[in-house]
């Protein structure tokens, strides 16, 4: 029924099956939307946040998905600025994942604030000294960039592409995509960093506070670096999951391996920096405030945060995946790669978790004890919402848009081989001329 909309030369499941899957995701989405509406109408009393936990699950989710969505900017940076051609085969998906992550992040922020209708005050009455202002501006503008990067992909839908204006628009946008990508990379650098700065500048919160350079605490750079390192891992992870679900190979191994290699080295350098930072924080910054590392990671009443979480974050989620990814064996061995990218994602999520939730759990005044918090169902539902939303958007995009340039080549449909060949020829031509036009563009 919807065959007109499906890209040429690829096979998709039946519409019925597709709709069944969409409605399953839609159900989860609907619960999330219901919870979201509850929060908007009744206020944040629907959550279990409290005056000790001003930030909670949502902000963690925000930080985590933006870090994971960092694949978009970093892959874009590598593809368009550094000019690594192979990455064009995965850039579309990286952009899509980034788009999902960032739109979700903005949505969560809109639920998280107590006065959503005044949310725009952050722009209008901006306090330029606040890290959150920087986050809001960069996030919004970068989201615009991601949208711009995603639009051409939408315009390449078979039906839409037939409209000359859109066809032309898509082409033009591709032509100057490098400019947008560069702007996006610039913005991303700042907002990933300022998200790190959010915790790092809190000089009243010893767990988060870091010294730094000029106005930027070390966490500023660590967050950018870690997002750049793990973002691609997440892109690979989602690609791998998509391949599992669709039971198709969608991206060639050399592309994945290249990205994994870059990610691995980024992660290794990040984790070294992180270790230096932790050492300096534990043995210089904290004692200056009268605290020891043992007070940060403790089994005091109310605290669930022992040294285990530091070990999880740095060793299991950092050193281990980094070491796997920098070795050729690790990148080529399927299981090792799976383990590495999963651990890397867990590691970064743990890092964002401690920088939000452990930060708030820890009492600063000596006569207070650790604060506990458990999210309400509304918080959990709205946090899962982006997952369902992401699954739906990926499914629709995958079904109707030419996301994976290598799909046709890797999954030839008997009887359509001839066409594939022409595509390959075209590709070769492009590579030779160094044209920046999209990899999926087909002859009209």
């Amino acid at each position, binding site marked *: 029924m919807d065959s007109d909309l499906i890209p040429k030369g690829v096979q998709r499941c039946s519409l019925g099956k597709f709709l069944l899957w969409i409605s399953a995701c839609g159900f989860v989405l609907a619960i999330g939307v219901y919870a979201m509406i509850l929060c908007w109408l009744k206020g944040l009393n629907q959550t279990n946040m409290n005056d000790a936990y001003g930030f909670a699950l949502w902000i963690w989710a925000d930080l985590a998905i933006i870090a994971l969505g960092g694949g978009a900017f970093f892959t874009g940076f590598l593809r368009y600025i550094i000019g690594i051609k192979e990455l064009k085969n995965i850039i579309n998906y990286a952009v899509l994942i980034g788009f999902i992550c960032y739109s979700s992040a903005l949505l969560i922020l809109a639920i998280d604030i107590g006065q959503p209708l005044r949310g725009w005050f952050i*722009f*209008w*009455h*901006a*306090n*330029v*000294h606040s890290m959150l*202002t*920087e986050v809001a*501006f960069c996030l919004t*503008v970068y989201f*615009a*960039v991601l949208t*711009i990067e995603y639009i051409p992909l939408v315009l390449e839908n078979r039906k839409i592409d037939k409209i*000359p*204006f*859109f*066809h*032309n*628009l898509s*082409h*033009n*946008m591709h032509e*100057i995509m490098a*400019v*947008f990508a560069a*702007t996006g990379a*610039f*913005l991303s650098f*700042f907002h990933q960093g300022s998200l790190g700065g959010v915790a790092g500048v809190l000089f009243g919160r010893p767990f988060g506070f870091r010294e730094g350079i000029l106005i930027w605490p070390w966490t500023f750079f660590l967050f950018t670096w870690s997002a750049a390192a793990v973002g691609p891992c997440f892109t690979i992870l989602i690609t791998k999951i998509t391949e599992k679900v669709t039971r198709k190979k969608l991206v060639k191994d050399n592309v994945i391996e290249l990205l994994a290699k870059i990610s691995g080295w980024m992660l290794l350098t990040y984790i070294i920096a992180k270790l230096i930072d932790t050492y300096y924080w534990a043995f210089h910054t904290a004692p200056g405030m009268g605290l020891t590392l043992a007070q940060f990671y403790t089994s005091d009443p109310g605290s669930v945060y022992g040294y285990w979480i530091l070990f999880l974050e740095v060793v299991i989620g950092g050193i281990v995946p980094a070491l796997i990814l920098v070795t050729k064996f690790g990148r080529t061995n399927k299981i090792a790669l799976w383990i590495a990218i999963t651990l890397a994602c867990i590691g970064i999520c743990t890092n964002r978790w401690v920088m939000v939730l452990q930060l708030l759990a820890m009492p600063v005044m000596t006569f207070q004890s650790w604060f506990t918090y458990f999210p309400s169902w509304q918080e959990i539902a709205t946090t899962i919402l982006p997952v369902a939303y992401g699954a739906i958007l990926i499914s629709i995009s995958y079904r109707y848009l030419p996301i994976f340039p290598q799909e046709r080549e890797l999954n030839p449909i008997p009887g359509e081989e001839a066409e594939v060949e022409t595509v390959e020829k075209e590709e070769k031509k492009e590579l030779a001329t160094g044209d920046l036009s999209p990899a999926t563009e087909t002859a*009209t």
Partner: protein
Amino acid sequence: MFPFAFEWIWDMGHYVFHGGLWYALSIIGAGMTYCIGKAAYDTLIQEKGSHEDEHH
């Protein structure tokens, strides 16, 4: 965001922050205007023009 908001101060913070912001916004704005404008122009040309001029 704009200099007429009362909390605006002409200091280094505002120069740097808003400098960066408006710079990025201008690039994006100009880029998109170019793309849309050119697409509209191209479409017009295509519609009027002959087949030799066919794009791509």
